[in-house]
C-alpha cells in the first residue's frame, strides 16, 4: 500500500501538554513513594490524606511554573512570588497537619506556640508533611521547567527556519533524562531501604508490592515522557526544515509506542529478577550443555555411519551370517548433562542463564560507555600488558569469526547462485526455439524486439547486410517505410542503448520498444502489400 506524505503541519503543542500531565502524575508517584518512606521511617506519623496533598502540590507546581514562564517576571519579583507562594503553602500544610486531630488539636497547638514557638510550630508531623509536599513539588517543578524550556526553544525555532533545532534539543532531552534517572535513582534507594527486612523494626510490615509498583510506574511514565519529547523534537525539526510529513504519522507513532512499551513491560515483568544458580555454576552448566550437544551430534553422526556401514557390509558378507551389532544408541540428554543439571530444573537454568547474560551485558555496556567517556583511560588500559594481550586475543577471535563468517557465507552464496543458475538454465527455453517474453528483463526485451524487426525486415525485403551497423540498417528501413522514419530511429536508439550502454533500461522503455515494433510491423506489412500490388 502506498501512502505518499503530504506537507501536514504537525503541532508539537499537544504532545507537550500530554507531557506536562505525565509530569504531574510522575511527581505524584514520587511523592507517594516518599510518603511511604516517611511512614516507614517515622512510625506513628499520620499519613492519611497525604495522597491528596501530593496531587495538589504537583498540580500547583505545574501551574505556577507555567504562570511564571508566561509572565516572564524579573528575578526579584519571581523570588517574591515564590516566597509568598510558600508562605501560603506552609500555612495550608500546617492546617492540614493539625486538623488530623480536629479543630481542638489545632487550637491547642496554637496556644502552645507562646511557650515554645519553634518546637510546637515545627512539630514532627508538620515537618514530615512539608518534606513530602516539597519532594513532590520540586520533582514536578524540575521536569516542568525543562519542558517549558523545550517549548520556548521550539517556539523560537518556529520563527527561525535555519536554526539547528536538533543540536539544541539534544541537551534538553539529556537534561530531562538526567532528572528522571537521578530522581528515579533516589526512589530506587528509598525503595530498596524500605524492602530491606533487616532494617524493619520488629512487628512492622511494609507493603513491598505497592512501593515497587509505584517506583516501576514512575519509570514507565518517565519512559513515555522521553518518547514524547523525542517525538516533539523530531516534528519540530521537520517543521523548521519544511519536511513533508506523512499524514497519519502521529497516529502510527502512538500505536507503535504503546505496543513497544507493552511488550517491553511484559518482558521486564517476565524476566527473572533473582537467580537460582550462581554465575560460575550457570556458566559451567552452559558449557557442559554445549559440550553435551556437540557430543550428541557426534554420536548421532556415528550412529548413522554405522548404519550405512552395516548396510554396505550386508551386501558382501555371507547372508546366512548375521552382521555384527555395531549400532550405537544415542544417549539421552539426562545422560549427557552432568549431575548438577539434575538438581535444577530447566526453567530455573534458563532463568539463571537469562539473568546472568543480562547482568554481564549491562556490566560490559556500562564499562564500554565509561571507556568511551574517558578515552585517555582506555588508551592507558590498552598499554597494560595482560589487557593488551586480552585485546589482541579478542581482535584475533573477532577476525577469525569474521573470516569464518565470510567464507561460510561465500560458500552458501556461491552454492545458491549455482543452484539458481542451474534452474535458470533448465528454464532457458531458447534451446527449444521459444522465448518467454515475461521472463525477459527490460534490456533483453528491447533487444528481442529489435531482432524481431531485423528478421521481419529481411522477410519483407529490407534485409540487413552483415556489414551494416544498426544506424546504417535504419537508413535501409527508412528508405522503405518513409512514413515511420522517427519510429525506426527511436527503435534503433533504444536498441543501441540496451545493447551497448550500461544505462538502466526500464520497463517503460521496454514497453515503448514493443510499441515501436508493432507499429513497424504494420508498416512493413503494408509496404510489402504495396509492393506485391505493383
Amino acid at each position, binding site marked *: 500500500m502506498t501512502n505518499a506524505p503530504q506537507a501536514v503541519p504537525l503541532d508539537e503543542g499537544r504532545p507537550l501538554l500530554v507531557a506536562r500531565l505525565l509530569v504531574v502524575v510522575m511527581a505524584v508517584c514520587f511523592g507517594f513513594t516518599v510518603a511511604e518512606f516517611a511512614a516507614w521511617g517515622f512510625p506513628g506519623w499520620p499519613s492519611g490524606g497525604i495522597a491528596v496533598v501530593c496531587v495538589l502540590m504537583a498540580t500547583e507546581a505545574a501551574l505556577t511554573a507555567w504562570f511564571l514562564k508566561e509572565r516572564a517576571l524579573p528575578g526579584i519579583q519571581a523570588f517574591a512570588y515564590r516566597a509568598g507562594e510558600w508562605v501560603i503553602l506552609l500555612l495550608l500544610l500546617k492546617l492540614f497537619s493539625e486538623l488530623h486531630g480536629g479543630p481542638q488539636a489545632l487550637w491547642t497547638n496554637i496556644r502552645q506556640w507562646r511557650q515554645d514557638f519553634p518546637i510546637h510550630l515545627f512539630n514532627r508531623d508538620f515537618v514530615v508533611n512539608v518534606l513530602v509536599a516539597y519532594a513532590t513539588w520540586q520533582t514536578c517543578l524540575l521536569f516542568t521547567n525543562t519542558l517549558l524550556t523545550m517549548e520556548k526553544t521550539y517556539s523560537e525555532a518556529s520563527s527561525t527556519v535555519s536554526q539547528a533545532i536538533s543540536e539544541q534539543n539534544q541537551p534538553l532531552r539529556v537534561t530531562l533524562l538526567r532528572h528522571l*534517572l537521578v530522581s528515579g535513582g533516589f526512589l530506587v534507594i528509598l525503595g*530498596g531501604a524500605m524492602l530491606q527486612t533487616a532494617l524493619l523494626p520488629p512487628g512492622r510490615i511494609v507493603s513491598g508490592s505497592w512501593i515497587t509498583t509505584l517506583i516501576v510506574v514512575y519509570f514507565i511514565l518517565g519512559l513515555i515522557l522521553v518518547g514524547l519529547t523525542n517525538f516533539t523534537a523530531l516534528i519540530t525539526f*521537520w517543521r523548521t526544515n519544511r519536511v513533508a510529513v506523512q499524514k497519519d504519522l502521529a497516529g502510527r507513532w502512538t500505536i507503535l509506542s504503546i505496543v513497544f512499551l507493552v511488550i517491553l513491560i511484559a518482558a*521486564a515483568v517476565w524476566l527473572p529478577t533473582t537467580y537460582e544458580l550462581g554465575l560460575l555454576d550457570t556458566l559451567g552448566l552452559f558449557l557442559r550443555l554445549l559440550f553435551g550437544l556437540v557430543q550428541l551430534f557426534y554420536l548421532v553422526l556415528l550412529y548413522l555411519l554405522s548404519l550405512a556401514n552395516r548396510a554396505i557390509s550386508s551386501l558382501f558378507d555371507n547372508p546366512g551370517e548375521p552382521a555384527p551389532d555395531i549400532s550405537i544408541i544415542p544417549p539421552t540428554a539426562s545422560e549427557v548433562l552432568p549431575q548438577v543439571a539434575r538438581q535444577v530444573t530447566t526453567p530455573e537454568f534458563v532463568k539463571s542463564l537469562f539473568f546472568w547474560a543480562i547482568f554481564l551485558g549491562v556490566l560490559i555496556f556500562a564499562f564500554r560507555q565509561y571507556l568511551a567517556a574517558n578515552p585517555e583511560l582506555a588508551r592507558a588500559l590498552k598499554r597494560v600488558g595482560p589487557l593488551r594481550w586480552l585485546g589482541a586475543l579478542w581482535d584475533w577471535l573477532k577476525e577469525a569469526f569474521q573470516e569464518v563468517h565470510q567464507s561460510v557465507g561465500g560458500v552458501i552464496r556461491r552454492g545458491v547462485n549455482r543452484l539458481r543458475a542451474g534452474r535458470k538454465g533448465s528454464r532457458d527455453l531458447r534451446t527449444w526455439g521459444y522465448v518467454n517474453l515475461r521472463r525477459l528483463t527490460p534490456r533483453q526485451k528491447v533487444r528481442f524486439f529489435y531482432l524481431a524487426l531485423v528478421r521481419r525486415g529481411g522477410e519483407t525485403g529490407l534485409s540487413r547486410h552483415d556489414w551494416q551497423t544498426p544506424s546504417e540498417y535504419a537508413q535501409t528501413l527508412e528508405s522503405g517505410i518513409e512514413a515511420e522514419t522517427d519510429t525506426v530511429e527511436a527503435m534503433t536508439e533504444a536498441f543501441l542503448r540496451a545493447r551497448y550502454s550500461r544505462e538502466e533500461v*526500464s520497463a517503460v522503455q521496454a514497453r515503448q520498444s514493443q510499441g515501436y515494433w508493432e507499429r513497424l510491423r504494420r508498416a512493413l506489412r503494408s509496404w510489402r502489400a504495396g509492393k506485391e500490388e505493383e
Partner: protein
Amino acid sequence: MLTELAVFFLLLLAVASIVDGGFAFTILYLFFGTALFGWLWARQTGKHIRFTRRFERRAFWGETIPVRIEIENSGLLPVPWLHLHESLPVDIAPEGPSQHVISLGPHGRSEVGYVLHGRKRGYYTIGPLFSTFGDVIGLARPQERGDSPDHMTVFPKIIPLTSLHLPSRSPHGTLRHHQPIFEDPSRILNKRDYVAGDSLRRVDWKATAATGRMQVKQYEPSIALETAIFLNLNEREYASMYRIDATELAIVIAASIANWVVLQKQSVGLVTNGIDPHLDGQLFVPPVPTRKGRAHLLHLLETLARLQPSDRTTLVEMLGRQSPNLPWGTTLVIVTGHVDEALFDELFQVQRRGQNVVVVLAGRAMNIKKALQQAEQFGLPMYAFQDEKALDLWRR
C-alpha cells in the same frame, strides 16, 4: 545520554545486589531493553529498507521532471519514522519540499516524490538519498544511511530555426538548390521539347513515343548538406566579463543548428574543445561523426548538455587537427566567441580544401565590425549573436 544510562544501570545493579531489590532489575530491564531494542530496531530498519528512484534520465530544457522514490520495508518490524533527504543540485532543485518523513508497516511500501525543473542544461547527480531512522522512545541514537546517486541530463535549450541557410557543395542530396551544376538525375523535375544541344542521355524515349515529339528530362538540382559544428569552448577565447553567458549561448546556437540540420534530414556532427566531466581523464571530447536522424541528434544534445569550458586547446588547433578528416563539401559551422587573423588563415585553408565555412560569433565580442569586414574579405559568411533574441534573424 548513554553514559548517564550506564551510571544508572550500575546503581540499579548495586541496589539489587545489596538489598532484596528485584524491582531494580525490572527497571533495569525496562531501560536496558529500551536502549537495546531501540538500537536493534534502527539497525534492522537500515538492513531492510530498499529505495528505488524512478525518473526520466533525459529532459529538454524547461521541462519538469517528476521523480518518484519507492520505499520498501522488507522486514517484519515496522518503521516508526524514516526521514528522507535527497541531495539535489541547486540548478534544477524543486520548488516544493525534497525532504519527506514516512512511516512504514511490516513489508510496507510507500512512495514520495518531487518535481525537478530543467532550468539549466547539464549532467546532474540526483542524490545520494540520505535516510535517518530510529525507534520511538529515542534512547538509542538515530541511524543514518546514504544510498547511491543517479544521474540526469538536461539538454541545452533549442531555438527552432526556420530560415537558416548553410552553404554546401555536396551534390545529390535531398535539399533543393538553384545551381544547375548540382542537377540530380534521380530527381526528375519536368519534361520539355528537345532543343539542339541537349544531351541524348536526357531524352525520355517513352514520353517521346507517347507524344510523338522529342522530349528531354529536366532534373532538379539538389545538394546534400553535411554539417560539422565546431564549437569553441576555450574560455580564454571569450570576453572574460561575459564568459559564462557567451559559452552558454554558443552551446544553445550549436544545439539549435544541429536540430535544424536533423529536421532537414541531413547529417550533422560535432567537434569541440570543451571538456566532458563524464569522460574522466580524457584530454579531448571525441568528435561526434556526422550522422542523420533523431537518435543521433539526442546523442549530440547529450554531449552538448555535459560540456564545460576549458582552456586546453584553441579553436585554431582544433580546426587544424579535425577539419582535414572531414569529406570534401562538408559545411563547417564555427561557433566561437572570438575571431582573429590566425583563425581566418586557418579557415581560408579549410575553404581551399573544398569545405564550406560559416562563422557564428556568440556573445559580446570586441570589434565585431572589424571581424565582419575581415570575414567579408575572406569570403566567409559570418553571423554575430549577442543574445538568444538575436537568433530571431534565423527564425524569420
